[in-house]
């Protein structure tokens, strides 16, 4: 009896958190089964630690610049007067230096949080737009539905990279603007179609009927009943959007079209436009492109792997048993 009372006395938000936690644990156990998803998660965690924890510590201790030094580890204005640049990886510079003597490892670590932020910011916008538009289109139907679906078809056909290349040639685009553009463009794209079809299957379920009968407004039904049910799928697509955003940023800054001070794509661009990556030089100056290229590939791949892992949580048919 006393136990029942404590359960009932517990505030509603606490019960909700408990339920959410239980659901999370259940999904986590499924996710943990997929090796590829866990691999992706570990790569992301390692990158996050390197970018958000290791770099600030290193910058404040080992790499702190002083006026008297002949070596500066600043990722943007750094130099090394003691070596012929670009110099081989050595003890002082674990990944070597770039053509103007900047330390590659410090550039790599400095850019990591920015890539993360860009990817996640763009993906959040994508998922927010995609989920809202997809569920609203599915629930209300009619002309709204037709309009957004045709729009999605159009954006699906949009040569995104070509568009971004032309756009970045006409205006100076920085990271935040790029994230906004990618987020909005892909938000109205394919993700809307997927989430709409998912929302359509939720819409015909009995609990939506009962919510209607008990007098819930349409707005309330969409955002309190349909959206939570399509959330796992939008989370899955968020991972793929992160990959897309980081990839687009890397391509644009690799082509030297972005208004950014430092990023992984720009690191390769600097070496390439300096003529260090022509023909046989590619092998000789390997440290100019391998670290940055590998970082882009790994981080893009990691989010893609997480997406594949989540796919097994969301789609029961893909599971082994």
């Amino acid at each position, binding site marked *: 009896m006393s136990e029942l009372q404590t359960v009932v006395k517990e505030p509603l938000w606490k019960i909700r958190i408990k339920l959410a936690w239980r659901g999370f644990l259940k999904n986590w156990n499924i996710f943990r089964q997929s090796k590829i998803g866990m691999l992706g998660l570990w790569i992301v965690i390692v990158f996050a630690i390197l970018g958000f924890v290791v770099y600030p510590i290193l910058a404040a201790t080992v790499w702190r610049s002083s006026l008297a030094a002949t070596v500066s580890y600043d990722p943007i204005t750094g130099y090394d007067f003691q070596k012929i640049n670009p110099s081989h990886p050595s003890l002082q510079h674990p990944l070597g230096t770039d053509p103007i003597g900047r330390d590659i490892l410090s550039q790599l670590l400095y850019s990591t949080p920015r890539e993360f932020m860009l990817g996640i910011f763009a993906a959040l916008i994508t998922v927010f737009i995609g989920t809202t538009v997809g569920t609203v289109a599915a629930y209300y139907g009619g002309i709204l539905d037709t309009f957004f679906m045709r729009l999605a078809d159009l954006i699906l*056909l949009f040569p995104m990279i070509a568009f971004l290349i*032309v756009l970045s040639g006409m205006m100076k685009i920085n990271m935040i603007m790029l994230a906004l553009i990618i987020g909005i463009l892909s938000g109205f794209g394919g993700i809307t179609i997927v989430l709409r079809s998912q929302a359509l299957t939720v819409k015909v379920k009995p609990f939506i009927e009962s919510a209607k009968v008990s007098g819930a407004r349409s707005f309330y039904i969409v955002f309190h009943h349909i959206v939570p049910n399509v959330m796992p799928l939008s989370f899955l697509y968020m991972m793929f959007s992160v990959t897309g955003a980081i990839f687009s940023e890397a391509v644009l800054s690799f082509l030297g079209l972005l208004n950014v001070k430092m990023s992984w794509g720009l690191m390769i661009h600097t070496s390439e436009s300096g003529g260090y990556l022509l023909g*046989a030089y590619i092998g000789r100056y390997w440290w100019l492109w391998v670290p940055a290229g590998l970082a882009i590939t790994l981080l893009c*791949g990691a989010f*893609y792997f997480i997406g594949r892992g989540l796919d097994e949580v969301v789609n029961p048919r893909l599971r082994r048993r």
Partner: protein
Amino acid sequence: MGKYIGKRLFQIVILLVIYIAVVFFILHAMPGGMKALFISNPRLTPEAQQAILKAFGLDKPPLTQFLIYMRNSFTLNFGVSFSHYPTPVWEIIKERLPRTALLFITATIISFLIGFHSGKVLAWKRGKAVEYVSTIGGVVAYTIFTPVLAFLLIWFFGAYLRLFPLNQFLNPDLWANTSFSSQVIFLRLLLTASIIGAVILVALILSYRLSHNIRSRRLIFYIPTISSVVIAVFIWWKSPYGIYGADILWHMVLPVVEVTIISYAGIMLVMRDSMLETVKEDFITTARAKGLPDRVVRDKHAARTALLPVITNFIISLGFTLSGGIITETLFSWPGMGLAMYEAVISHDYPLAAGCLIFTGIFVLFAHLVVDIVYAFLDPRIRY
């Protein structure tokens, strides 16, 4: 069928109008757009600025400008390129578009054939070491940063093994004393390729129409295919242009390999997943229970059903492959549309950039139409 294609064409024209409107909007509404470009130069006198604005029609109201732009786009009049002055944009695009098309189509067909077959075999060998290794390889190829792949290819095949030329479209030493342009040879190559392609397509359709036996089907398919290829090679061999055609083809290998790898991985992975789902269906169990050979179950029952999602996914990833093509062109100095667009953007050649963007869009729309028709052919559930 004709009605279906007509309907799709109509939709494509509408999409094209919207697309051109978007391009127009980018050109004119953005800071640093057309108008700002001409006014921002402080060394020009106001009269000269006004004269330029008038010459480019930028003094008219925006709606009139838009209508004129739309009309010009449909009559292929994109203005004069700034960086290749006084060549009209359309002339440049006309020269570059076939190169991009050849690169893209060749790579797509190769990657589709290999991706389809390897995905099919992999799903059938579920749980074996081959499957793990190939899946991981496919995922790596799918997620690798495109320029990195290009560097690897250039370094390994071009610099280390010295098998293929590093960059460029042709070998200048060879072409120094020729009296014809490379475009002539290139267009002939394209013509040969499309004739062979048409023969293969007709052979494929004939083999399915005429026979229901796998062995005779193969015979009907392979005899015209191989003989057309042999005849084409023979004609090129005997003609004085042979060596020049071979030179272009030789320069084409690495870019094609790159675009192939980019689009192959996606097709293979989707085919594998789709095949894994199909294998669980009841009709596969039935086919096996009937005592059909394993290969027949795999090729005739499972793979044909599993093919449809692959094609759907292919439509979605068209843009991805195309952007891979743009990056490939800039990296391998393959003078196609992508490189033209990149150079136009770098040198602020707005008419050329806009023209290339519009034609990239047309290219994607057209590819989409082709895939749609193929899909309608393959899926008997689609009624047109």
